[in-house]
């Protein structure tokens, strides 16, 4: 539609993420068909536990332990904030996309991120918190977003690397969340993951095109992968023995796999993909381990991860000040729309 300025990769992406999401959706329907176990006593905690162990979803108006509610609010809000802040690094390249077609795609992608943020805020609101409160917490720096968005996008190849590696890592993290025990979060994740698979493919295709272009373009693609690889690995969080929230979240079936398991899964998927690109991952210790049936690899720098989470990454201040500025600059729109709606209501009452 916008001119054919690339040739699509011949090989489909391995991994079958869409199939995994569809399987999660089928499991959700199947659990609903199976029905909930009967509530035998007045013991609310026991009933909650029996729902979790029967793989049934917890719904907004069900009784749930306060800590379960708090954990979900924290996790879903952080996830929503990440989608919203995540619009910035890619949004930077909309005006400089190399063709009209790529610009249209990038706009659609950034718009999807906004949509994902809104689905997630809506899921968090079912837990009894308002979106305004969560936005406040983000703007005051009292809730976090994914540390990956504190890295800069220096050139067009970075847009490709974000799509392939950052969205790829996010999907690896998120596909198991489609089976999360909290119904509204699981359903939002199914919707999000279906949309994310386009993001990952568009990133991969950008890198593929660059990798088969001029030597300078190929080098640009390799450079972007070199810079994004370890931050992408760090997206899975601290190693299992240092992860503070993991065990309880696994018991509640909010989380289904440990950070290290997911990181390993991601590495195993990326190796054959980078080979198809004709590029390499910047890890001299990367090799197949026959015994483990998995790749050995170098762990990301977790001290750096902690520094970036605490606010000392390359772009933390820029991301937050941008978010605060646009939120403040949008205030008149929110107020004007509310004032208009109030005026219309008065007129309708008067007319009736």
């Amino acid at each position, binding site marked *: 539609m916008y001119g054919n300025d690339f040739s699509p990769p011949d090989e489909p992406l391995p991994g079958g993420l869409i199939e995994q999401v569809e399987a999660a959706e089928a499991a959700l329907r199947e659990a609903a068909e199976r029905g909930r176990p009967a*509530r035998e006593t007045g013991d609310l905690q026991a009933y909650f536990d029996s729902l979790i162990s029967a793989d049934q979803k917890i719904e907004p*108006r069900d009784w749930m332990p306060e800590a379960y509610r708090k954990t979900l609010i924290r996790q879903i809000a952080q996830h929503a904030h990440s989608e919203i802040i995540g619009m910035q690094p890619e949004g930077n390249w909309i005006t400089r996309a190399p063709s009209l077609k790529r610009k249209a795609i990038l706009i659609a992608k950034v718009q999807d991120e906004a949509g994902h943020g809104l689905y997630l805020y809506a899921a968090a609101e079912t837990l009894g918190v308002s979106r305004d409160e969560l936005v406040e917490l983000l703007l005051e720096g009292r809730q976090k977003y994914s540390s990956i968005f504190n890295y800069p996008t220096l050139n067009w190849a970075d847009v490709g690397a974000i799509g392939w590696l950052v969205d790829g890592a996010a999907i690896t993290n998120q596909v198991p969340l489609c089976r999360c025990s909290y119904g509204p979060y699981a359903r939002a994740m199914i919707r999000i993951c279906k949309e994310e698979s386009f993001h990952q493919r568009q990133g991969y295709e950008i890198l593929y095109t660059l990798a088969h272009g001029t030597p300078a373009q190929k080098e640009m693609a390799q450079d972007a992968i070199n810079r994004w690889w370890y931050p992408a690995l760090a997206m899975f969080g601290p190693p299992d023995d240092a992860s503070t929230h993991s065990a309880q979240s696994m018991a509640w079936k909010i989380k289904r796999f440990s950070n290290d398991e997911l990181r390993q899964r991601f590495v195993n998927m990326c190796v054959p993909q980078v080979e198809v690109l004709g590029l390499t991952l910047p890890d001299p210790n990367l090799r197949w381990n026959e015994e483990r049936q998995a790749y050995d690899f170098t762990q990301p720098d977790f001290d750096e991860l902690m520094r970036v989470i605490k606010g000392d990454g390359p772009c933390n201040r820029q991301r937050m000040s941008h978010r605060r500025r646009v939120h403040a600059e949008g205030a008149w729109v929110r107020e004007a729309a509310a004032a208009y709606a109030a005026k219309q209501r008065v007129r309708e009452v008067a007319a009736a």
Partner: protein
Amino acid sequence: MSQEWPLWEVFVRPRRGLAHSHVGSLHAPDARSALHNARDLYTRRQEGVSIWVVPAAAITASSPDEKDAFFEPAADKVYRHPTFYEVPEGAPHL
């Protein structure tokens, strides 16, 4: 200053012939913008041919706590289902 826009529940009819079903919620100042926002948020990939938006505050929901008592009257009326009845051998068209 902050006066949050009200919450709306969104229902989408995926195709003609199917019922509207709940897809999620959103904030909007009035019904018309709620419809526009719902289109942008929930049907970016042609997921629907029709949208309903309903103020969340206008919905009265049964509570899961009263589940047993509330739905109990239907629980012991198995005779409402055709499978309750034994059909004599050879009776056609039943």
